[in-house]
């Protein structure tokens, strides 16, 4: 008879330090090929270790909390960080881009996570942190990528396609008619990573959350069900967030007078 473990095997501090040796592969490669990444790699590795150790402590404390307000505030802070990070990766900016990103990230992730917790997972209470925090985090991580891509594509599309857009405007198009193709393309491109990852999920990639649950002793068939829910949450959250931010950005870069306002754009 096999014994089903109650949790994953614990990793001692010494063995954890051993795992850090793996990063030396990257450092050696960078030095050998003169990639100039050595320093960045070390900083990134260090940040990763410190952030995760801290998060481990914070989550342990958090999972003992019972107040809804605290958890909701924490969720909003996570969404705000995601919204800001999404803009930081774009090549150009415009006034109000942070507000657009924050609004899109917060509303889309709140809606999707809220519906999933209340309607599908039915955790009790609905804000139970061991469900809310990781699920929200996964939705945010993916929405962030979509928003970066969508914003970049929107700004590039309007700038590169400026003459076509203005020609349409000059011939009587509304700002929506003139920019529709650019908006569509921005949303399409931003959704590609999500769709691609759904296509090969389980075949090429074993998702991290599922792997984690299996390591912790959950039955694979149960872990898979969680994974399906989370993928749908990610897909719809990303779609909503991208749609929101692209439309808001388009409104900022055009005027009520149906003019293209690329002068509001700066790199």
């Amino acid at each position, binding site marked *: 008879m096999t014994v089903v473990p109650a949790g994953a095997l614990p990793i001692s501090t010494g063995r954890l330090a051993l795992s850090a040796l793996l990063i030396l592969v990257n450092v050696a490669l960078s030095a050998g090929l003169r990639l100039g990444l050595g320093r960045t790699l070390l900083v990134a590795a260090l940040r990763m270790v410190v952030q995760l150790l801290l998060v481990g402590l914070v989550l342990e404390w958090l999972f003992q909390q019972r107040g809804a307000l605290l958890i909701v505030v924490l969720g909003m802070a996570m969404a705000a960080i995601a919204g800001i990070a999404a803009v930081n990766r774009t090549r150009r900016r415009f006034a109000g881009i942070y507000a657009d990103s924050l609004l899109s990230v917060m509303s889309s992730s709140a809606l999707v996570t809220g519906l999933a917790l209340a309607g599908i997972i039915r955790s009790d209470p609905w804000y139970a942190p061991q469900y809310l925090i990781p699920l929200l985090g996964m939705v945010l991580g993916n929405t962030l990528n979509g928003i970066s891509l969508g914003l970049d594509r929107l700004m590039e599309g309007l700038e590169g396609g400026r*003459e076509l857009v203005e*020609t349409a*405007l*000059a*011939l*009587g198009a509304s700002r929506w008619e003139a920019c529709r193709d650019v908006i569509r393309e921005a949303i399409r491109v931003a959704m590609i990573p999500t769709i691609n990852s759904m296509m090969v999920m389980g075949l090429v990639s074993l998702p991290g959350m599922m792997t984690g649950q299996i390591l912790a002793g959950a039955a694979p068939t149960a872990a898979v069900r969680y994974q399906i829910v989370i993928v749908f949450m990610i897909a719809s959250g990303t779609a909503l967030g991208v749609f929101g931010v692209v439309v808001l950005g388009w409104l900022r870069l055009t*005027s009520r007078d149906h*003019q293209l306002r690329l002068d509001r754009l700066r790199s």
Partner: protein
Amino acid sequence: MEPSALFSAAGLGCSLGGRLLWRDLGLTLQAGDRIGLVAPSGQGKTLLLRSLALLEPLQAGALSLRGCPPAAWGLPAWRARVCYLSQRPVAHAGTVEDNLRRVWAFSSQRRRGVWQPQRIRHWLTRLGRNGGFLGYRAERLSGGELQMLALLRALQLDPEVLLLDEPSASLDMATSLALEALLCDWLAAGQRACVLASHDPGQISRFTSGRLELNR
């Protein structure tokens, strides 16, 4: 502003990067007017034409068409009637016909008319082309052919004021003359007027009935 005027602009002012381009500029167009816009390069001819079409925000002054301000028409409807043609025309990937037809999908144009292939073929003949031009791929057109496409794309919409920015810069002399003749007939066929910016003094003296000079 005269109430009978087709189009009028009054008190226009514009400065760019601290440099004053024009101040208190006025322009009144009656049906049939063909105004030549003359100024050295870099004096803002394009900017002025774009401002009349409200593709640029007006810094000072007011515009009206048939006595109504742009806001009363709505901006897309304004530009359907006061139409600016860029000196660097562009087209979507696809055939010439695709490009000519797609502008009829704009809601400001759907109410005003329909795609008229016969009329376009007739105009093409006058420009020394035939209906086969409609099947050409827009991305393979020469600079001059692209200018023809842009002109036909606007003319078919019958704007009341046509703002032309160097419309024949890439055309040979014979085609330029044919284009001017075509424009004259088109202008005469309705309550229409035209402002033309050109660096070609010959074209200005042949084609225009009045002049607007930009100087500080």
